[in-house]
């Protein structure tokens, strides 16, 4: 029975005897094995998710809550965080984990606000990463005094696709969305929008100069995530930043 199947053409075969070969490797001794199908059934994110669980346990043990902050490039995460740190100082002890592909520019902009900042330079992987994963976040933990913090904000890499796929051990996910990005993005990147409990709609000071249709955007957001909170904000003028800070304070234990 099909002892010497040819698989050189790369075709996917469904062997009639697949069931009897659905054992683990190691017990093939004693008979000639053919081109086998070896059943695996292993989740590709398993390793990441195990590390995320370890991160989550470490955050919980330290009594710190963690927000994973995501957005497209240029939506204003770093500006919002700078305004946030300026206001939360004294109310909340905040740590920042900063993901950046090549530079420390964002971390430099946040320096001087008495927050603990750990930079993850993601440029060391295969040509740089487009997201933070759980092991990267884990590597930053020894550089943060977790026990002395109330809240850690993870500033993810600017990208609307990849960061949504990786649990890093956070308690909550939030997005910064700029009104300059138009109304359609929730439908184009539903996984990201669906994964967030809060969408900060930033740069609302630009609304008078744009054709942005806020109700159209909110309608699209509801189609993929009917329960997300929405906060209109301008990190530049400070509008709505207090409400965002209140949201962060509510996340902290």
């Amino acid at each position, binding site marked *: 029975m099909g002892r010497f199947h040819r698989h050189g053409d790369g075709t996917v075969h469904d062997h009639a005897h697949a069931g009897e070969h659905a054992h683990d490797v190691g017990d093939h001794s004693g008979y*000639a094995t053919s081109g086998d199908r070896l059943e*695996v059934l292993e989740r590709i994110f398993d390793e990441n998710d195990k590390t995320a669980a370890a991160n989550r346990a470490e955050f919980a043990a330290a009594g710190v809550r963690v927000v994973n902050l995501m957005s497209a490039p240029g939506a204003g995460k770093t500006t919002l965080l700078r305004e946030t740190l300026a206001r939360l100082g004294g109310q909340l002890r905040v740590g920042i984990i900063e993901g950046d592909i090549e530079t420390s520019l964002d971390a430099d902009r946040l320096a001087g606000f008495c927050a603990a900042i750990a930079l993850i330079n993601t440029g060391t992987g295969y040509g740089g990463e*487009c997201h933070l994963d759980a092991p990267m976040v884990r590597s930053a933990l020894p550089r943060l005094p977790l026990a002395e913090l109330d809240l850690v904000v993870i500033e993810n890499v600017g990208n609307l696709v990849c960061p949504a796929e990786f649990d890093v051990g956070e308690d909550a996910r939030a997005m910064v969305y700029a009104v300059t990005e138009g109304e359609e993005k929730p439908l184009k990147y539903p996984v990201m929008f669906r994964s967030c409990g809060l969408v900060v709609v930033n740069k609302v000071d630009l609304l008078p100069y744009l054709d942005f249709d806020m109700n159209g955007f909110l309608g699209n957001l509801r189609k993929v995530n009917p329960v997300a909170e929405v906060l209109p904000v301008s990190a530049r003028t400070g509008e709505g930043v207090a409400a965002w800070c209140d949201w962060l304070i509510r996340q902290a234990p």
Partner: protein
Amino acid sequence: MSIVGTVHELSICSSIADIVTRHAAGRTVLVINVRAGQLRQIVPDTLVYCWELVSAGTPLAGSRISVEPVPARIRCRACGQATDLGEVPVFACGGCGGFAVEVVSGEEFLITSLELAAEREVSG
């Protein structure tokens, strides 16, 4: 060329390589069968291309990833109707229009099986 900032398929390929290497246990892998739900945002062509990059120069060089896509499907918590998400994924029940839905498929992402090269053994 730079593909920084666009694809997570590269790091996914590293995870795949770890899993495949462990299961293959030294045998030659021809095809890696991957099941990828629509909501996993995997671009099959990109995954195949990234796999060539990641596997090059390793014992897995020459193996190929075959992606079995799984459409996304939701079920309404109110009326129970199942709805397939289309190209534009609206997470609302196709029957009653309700938003209280759960995803029943489309989030899976796993290696289902490996196609291994024939091994001629003299024993037996």
